[in-house]
């Protein structure tokens, strides 16, 4: 199953809240995926297919050289923004 990891600085607040919005968007889109959350230090070794994080982490992630699809959000709990940015990635992966 598709795996999505949501990342923030501490890995238990902002990312957890964002995870709920992501799950809600996935439900709307009728896409099945396993969503989890973590802190940025643990994100480097993830096996998730898609990583979602805040815009402020973009520079940090650019140093990690990850092969995953990366999505950066202005607003972590904005379902419209999540849907807009996640949809093309899901289409590319054949999930939509």
């Amino acid at each position, binding site marked *: 199953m598709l795996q999505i990891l949501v990342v*923030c*600085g*501490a*890995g*238990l*607040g*902002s990312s*957890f*809240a*964002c995870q*709920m*919005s992501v799950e809600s968007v996935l439900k709307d889109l009728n896409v099945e995926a396993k969503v989890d*959350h*973590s*802190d*940025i230090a643990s994100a480097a070794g993830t096996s998730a297919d898609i990583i979602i994080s*805040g815009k*402020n*982490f973009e520079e*940090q992630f650019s140093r990690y050289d990850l092969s995953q699809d990366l999505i950066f959000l202005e*607003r*972590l*709990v*904005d*379902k419209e923004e999540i849907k807009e940015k996640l949809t093309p990635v899901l289409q590319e992966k054949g999930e939509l």
Partner: protein
Amino acid sequence: MKEIKFTKENVRLNVQADDWKDAIHQGVALLEHNGFVTDKYAFHIIRNIDEYGPYIVISPGIAIPHARPEDGAIDIGVSLITLKQSISFPNMETPVRVLISFAAQDNDQHLNIIKLIVKIIEDGLIQKIADISSIQKLNDLIGGDE
């Protein structure tokens, strides 16, 4: 949901804060007063923001100060403060007047606190909370008593 009952012990309304660091200190002071965190917790939150940017501002108008369990969290707990005047975080233009600070012991146990925060944002209640005049009205608005 004992951890999200708002009382005079964990709420301060219309607080005067000098800047974002002062606002974090004031919100976290309530957690410390209630025995949920050590005196190191606010320091770690501020250090994280200095390092990663204001990841605690998850939607316009609201910040959710928190750090890792090992950064001084003792028990699951929450506090809420509203500010008399809005403050801005570094590299973030949207002003903040509501701060919901919390402590958690692992990545998942504080699910109810996160659910409440997401509900507040999705229901568009941030401005109403910023302007709220009593704890009773706050609990009526968000159902924190249930």
